[in-house]
């Protein structure tokens, strides 16, 4: 006959197992979060603004976060940037050199030395620094370096290739 103590014992062992499993999942999610935020993250990018480098219908690319955290992002790099017009959108663009059009900004780009001008490869279908000016380095989230999907495009996306 099942006494109260046996039922309690079973409940306790089940609860312990549930707790252990939950802890393993939580640890895994934490590792995933830290990897995606500080090291490298896969992203789906789509849209016409980076044609022909990136496809219209969507590419899965790998973007690394270490260079952006150190500020080592230079001309020619493809970067993921949080849009200055809508913070909920992350866009992919290419970094241009600091020289460029002479436009008057509220903040002098020479004084905020942490500004980058970003332009889409497809200049006809891209909203970029020609519309909203140079963006602060703090908005640059990651640097794209590799494409993993579609398979025809598998390979490095580094500057010059």
């Amino acid at each position: 006959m099942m006494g109260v103590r046996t039922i309690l014992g079973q409940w306790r062992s089940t609860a312990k197992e549930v707790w252990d499993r939950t802890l393993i999942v939580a640890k895994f999610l934490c590792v995933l979060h830290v990897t995606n935020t500080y090291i490298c993250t896969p992203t789906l990018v789509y849209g016409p603004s980076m044609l022909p480098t990136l496809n219209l219908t969507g590419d899965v690319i790998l973007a690394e976060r270490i260079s952006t955290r150190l500020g080592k992002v230079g001309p020619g790099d493809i970067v993921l940037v949080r849009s200055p017009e809508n913070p909920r959108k992350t866009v992919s663009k290419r970094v241009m050199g600091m020289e460029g059009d002479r436009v008057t900004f509220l903040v002098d780009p020479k004084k905020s030395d942490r500004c980058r001008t970003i332009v889409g490869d497809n200049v006809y279908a891209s909203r970029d620094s020609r519309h909203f000016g140079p963006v602060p380095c703090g908005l640059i989230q990651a640097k794209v370096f590799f494409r993993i999907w579609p398979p025809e495009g598998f390979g490095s996306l580094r500057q010059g290739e």
Partner: protein
Amino acid sequence: MGNASFLWNAMTKSITGGLIALTISDRYASIVSVHGLSMYPTFNSSTNTFLGSLSDDYVLVEKFCLANYKFTDGDVIVFRSPNNHKEKHIKRIIAMPGDWIKVPHSYDMLKIPEGHCWVEGDNSASSLDSRSFGPVPLGLVQGRVTHIVWPPQRVGQVRRSIPEGRFSL
């Protein structure tokens, strides 16, 4: 032999604990210390210079607001400086996108562009804020300050408030 496995155990446990703490502080809430007097008297209102940085206020910064970037006038936010992405500032939002704000020391009215906000410190006399570097893109915001957690005599909620005399439509 026992020492090596004890050390290994301790190391893995502390790495795991560190990862969990980092995730929580990135996604949910974290505690940061406030340096400087730009938000006097909301933060650091004890002007006891003898203790120096020991008397800095510690505040709770919540990150749930970053899911939708829904802020309102009067929120105190933590954001990355537009001039130096390694620095973070704490200021109060005075105007949101679409609002018009009067530019100090001039007769201009400036419209806050889409996706930006105008921030100012509560202590206008000694605050480096939007009056110097212009509207701040909301993408630079790292969190919203909700409570002061140290020192104990000032523990409490940080209220939303617009300072007097900032006429914004």
